[in-house]
């Protein structure tokens, strides 16, 4: 009898949990669903009271406007170039430096690692002024290179790779050395293949951070042809287009959708990678 009671309590708990978590899920996903559906509505329907969920007359005009009235292909290309180059740079430079910091003896190693640790938590707003002054002295303001270089090799990436490579057994590397392999070859053919999970995590995190990065591109890109997607969207949202709901919603979809697709496809690596990064 008492086991029956426990079972029925379990059933109630199950139902309550599913309802609560389900409501929460609707609250999390609802705004995205509304954004996507409304981006296919005409201006009048977007503003209508009471609001609609499904578009009555499906229109692609909002997306057309992104091309005709604004220069979204340029912003998209800028965002993609910046994110891809930043990601590749971090994978390469951070894994190489991580290897050196974890496994190779060289003078100044502790100082370098100390500086990496010391700057991981520095808020980006702290360095924005000197970074802008430096960029303008180097002629990097309002260039794509200027958007990329400050993020091309980040402290967090080195920390992540160093921690991961540190756990690779030394015997493995020694064996390769005895076989006469050069350090470059060991790095490329022994260390990197073993680092795939860490590289996947670093690659995903860097790509996302770069795609969504806002403050530095806002400061460093001064003409429209150098805007990234978030900068263009934000400046339209607060400027003279601030009430063009149709345009802004379609623009938001273009900013969000590529990332959502990547995330849903890679979500398993994602969640695992973030969890292990967090627990280290």
């Amino acid at each position, binding site marked *: 009898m008492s086991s029956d009671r426990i079972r029925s309590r379990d059933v109630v708990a199950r139902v309550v949990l599913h309802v609560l978590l389900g409501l929460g899920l609707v609250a999390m996903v609802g705004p995205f669903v509304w954004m996507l559906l409304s981006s296919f509505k005409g201006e009048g329907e977007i503003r209508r009271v009471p609001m609609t969920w499904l578009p009555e007359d499906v229109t692609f005009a909002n997306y057309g406007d992104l091309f005709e009235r604004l220069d979204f292909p340029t912003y998209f290309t800028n965002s993609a170039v910046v994110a891809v180059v930043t990601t590749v740079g971090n994978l390469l430079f951070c894994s190489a430096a991580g290897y050196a910091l974890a496994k190779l003896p060289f003078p100044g190693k502790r100082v370098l690692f100390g500086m990496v640790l010391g700057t991981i938590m520095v*808020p980006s707003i*702290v360095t924005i*002024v000197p970074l802008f002054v430096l960029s303008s*002295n180097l002629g990097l303001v309002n260039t794509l290179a200027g958007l990329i270089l400050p993020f091309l090799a980040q402290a967090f990436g080195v920390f992540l790779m160093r921690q991961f490579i540190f756990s690779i057994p030394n015997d493995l590397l020694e064996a390769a050395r005895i076989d006469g392999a050069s350090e470059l070859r060991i790095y490329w053919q022994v260390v990197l293949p073993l680092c795939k999970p860490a590289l996947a995590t670093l690659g995903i995190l860097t790509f996302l951070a770069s795609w969504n990065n806002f403050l530095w591109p806002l400061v460093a890109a001064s003409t429209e042809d150098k805007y990234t997607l978030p900068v263009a969207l934000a400046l339209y949202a607060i400027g003279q287009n601030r009430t063009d709901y149709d345009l802004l919603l379609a623009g938001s979809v273009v900013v969000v959708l590529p990332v959502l697709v990547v995330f849903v496809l890679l*979500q398993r690596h994602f969640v695992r990678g973030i969890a292990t990064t967090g627990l280290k």
Partner: protein
Amino acid sequence: MPARSGTLARAVTGWAFALPFAALFLVFTAGPVVASLAMSVTDIRSADLLDPLGVNVVAFDNYARLFADPKFVQAAVNTAVFVVVGVPLTMALALLVALGLNSGLVRFRTLFRVGYYLPVVTSIVAISVVWRFLLQPDSGLFNELLGLVGIDGPSWLDDRPFALPTLIVMAAWRNLGFAMVIFLAGLQAIPKDLYEAATIDGARTLARLRYLTVPMLRPTMLFVAVITTIGYVQFFEEPFVMTQGGPLDSTLSLAYHTYNQFGFGNYGYASAMGYVLFVVVVLLSIAWFRLLRNTHEQ
């Protein structure tokens, strides 16, 4: 001799691997961190870029001016409220969701996990644009839903008492997925035997939560608290897109004020403000560490 050249060769190899990172890092990260401190004790303005000799050292004048600047004080208070309310709110919601998903009673766990994590990966700018529409006083989704139960919702972003709380709730909505994933990993790392032992000893659900789960989660909580705090101290995009710091500076944040001062060309002043923000981040991290460090490891 061979030994010495071997050491040299290894040093060269080590530096060769570290150099591309080290060079970029020194120029674009470590250098600016130091330069920012140096600039914060000068009166450098944007016009001085063409005439570096016009810069004067003014010692701590910028810092003294900061605390006499009513906008700075307002921004500091707003940021403090955002952090003090937002971080615990985000963590509590995330922990509840994680406990629910970890209870062993829930199906479709991947679906829930992906759904709750969705806002974390998306651009804050896009989210802010969408939420601005949802929060419209007359045609937005929120007030329509409230209207269904007979409540006449306010103008969320234009009414002074509502603007900052609205941004806090939005931040919790956006960030709880990150904390949830870390909490889930932390929960799964707690050995199952401990729960069995506690149950056999007669500990009920709440007692197990209080005396077993929460203490075992301390390191995880510390990590989540520090990361969330660092993020929240810098909040900028939401007010930039949704309120432009208004109404009446009630959503002006420290990072936003710093950005504005930079925009006005007050480089020394902006650097000083940025450094204050940095110090606050470090102090808060230390505070979390003292509060949440594992008492058994003292």
